């Protein structure tokens, strides 16, 4: 039986800040007891696998690296309806596409959770490397706490 709420961390940890979503998910996975009845998935670059991971849930919280024209390290909460993708060009595709496309397909198939929240974190660098930039590394605990607060609010606790 799937948990009603799922947190999904996305990105490639070989590309420095690109992997911030994965780093947050890995931290959250160590928060035993805090996240009861919530599944945390470190999905890396799973792509279309996200469709299956979110199907049948009530709420999904994504954490991902996002170009938002913010200061590096800034975290912003948004929903798919709050943004337009700069990748959404004619002929867009899922294979090369982005999270927003997958969510749209999920919605059309009737599988999309009622509530979708995305936490975007502005990168400083997406160059090859396994380390986060200092601007993000120093705020990792804050990112984790923000996501935990999101879950607490959802649980009414």
């Amino acid at each position, binding site marked *: 039986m799937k948990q009603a709420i799922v947190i999904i961390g996305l990105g490639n*940890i070989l590309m420095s800040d690109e992997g911030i979503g994965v780093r947050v998910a890995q931290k959250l996975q160590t928060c035993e007891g805090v996240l009861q009845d919530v599944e945390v998935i470190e999905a890396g670059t799973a792509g279309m696998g996200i469709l299956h991971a979110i199907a049948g849930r009530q709420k999904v919280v994504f954490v991902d690296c996002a170009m938002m024209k913010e200061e590096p390290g800034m975290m912003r909460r948004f929903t798919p309806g709050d943004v337009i993708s*700069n990748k959404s060009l004619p002929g*867009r595709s899922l294979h090369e596409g982005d999270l927003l496309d997958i969510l749209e397909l999920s919605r059309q198939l009737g599988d999309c959770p009622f509530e979708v929240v995305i936490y975007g974190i502005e990168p400083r660098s997406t160059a090859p490397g396994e380390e986060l930039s200092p601007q993000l590394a120093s705020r990792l605990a804050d990112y984790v706490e923000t996501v935990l607060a999101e879950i607490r609010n959802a649980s009414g606790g």
Partner: protein
Amino acid sequence: MRFGGEPYLVITAGEEVMTKTVEVNVHHVTRVEGHGNITLRASDGNIEKVEWQVPEAPRFFEAMVRGRSYEDIQTIVSRICGICSVTHSFAAIKAIEAAMDIKVSKQTDNIRMLLHYGEQLESHALHVGYLVAPDLLGQNSVIPLAKSHPDVVKTVIRLHRLGNTIMEVLGGRMTHPVTVKPGGFTVLPTEAQLLELKQMMEDSVPDITTLADVVLSLADKLPVFERETEYIALVEPKHYSFYHGDIGSTDTDEVKPVNEFESVVNEYVTPQSTAKWAKWHRDSYMVGALARYNLGADHLLPLAGKIARKFGLKKGCCNPYMNNVAQVIECAQVAEHSLQLIDEVISAGIKDEKPDVKVQAGNGAGAVEAPRGILFHRYEFDEKGICTGANLCIPTNQNHGNIQKDFEAFAPQIIDREQNEIRLLLEMLVRAYDPCISCSTHYLDVEFI
């Protein structure tokens, strides 16, 4: 997050001037992982320029593994690509095992192949259903297809989910597997889990048949284009190979051991591309499902053979668009072989084996068939098991030269058609190769409204 490749598609198809000039510039082919440009310029029916332009796939992963323990290599390379993470894992593990003379059990071999098939099924379903079907059904992506042909999309998604489930059960999660190590598995599936997978696999047969029927009903939309080509894949004497074997070619009966893969790939530099091309007996060769088919079709299992006959796909086919059909046939092949493997593992009794590795210095190569063709890894280790050198040769790189040769042969045949049709045919040709041009960065790129 972005799932491979550059996000931007810019099509600037030029106007036909005095009905004499054709100019097609597709910057970053959509529905392909990674970016690549198509350029065609023709005047009065004469092709002045036709090029498949791609940058060299990043080689920084090779630098990244240098100085790392053999124990870390799989974890790192599994992150190179979200779609081929199992394949990269096994190419690396097999290379490490070759370098350190590590033997694995039949059980390990069988469960690895099963996991590998999960990725094949997932990737083929994705490619045929999400990338090729929109072309054949006149849509520009799978999103409108979900409205116009929901049953097709749902069939594809069920097959994709099955592949995904196999990877979760055997690899420990849906991608970037965590259970596979040099020497074996850290966590083995239970008999109950295998039986559940078996049931799911049996239940998938109608979906595979449906997918085949859908593609068959649209097969007349696959362009007719043939060019004699050398096909290269792993070969085994009695099996359709995805995981074991030597390197075979349709141009020769000679096979090469995997440890000599550099003498097959023969990477070379060409002025028109920053990506290296590959050649063995000709200027280029093709890898992928059609290559495997052309070398292994005699060993198809019954359902796969039946589907192949429905399509009338003959061994020796040299129409690259039929790579899509070969992928459909392979969906059946991996499903059928998975059932055999599960039976074999269960009937032998699942043994609680743990990886047993004695670290030693050495150099070794490994090869497995990625969904999009043969993948080679080579590593060198010192006596402490620290990596001192690496060479990764991905299938997409091996195909670049062949795409160009196809362009050169095909463009003159279609140059009298409408400009948009020419563009689509060339895009479809690239997509038929199912390329994966290193998906290295994956971020969202958004504007707030």
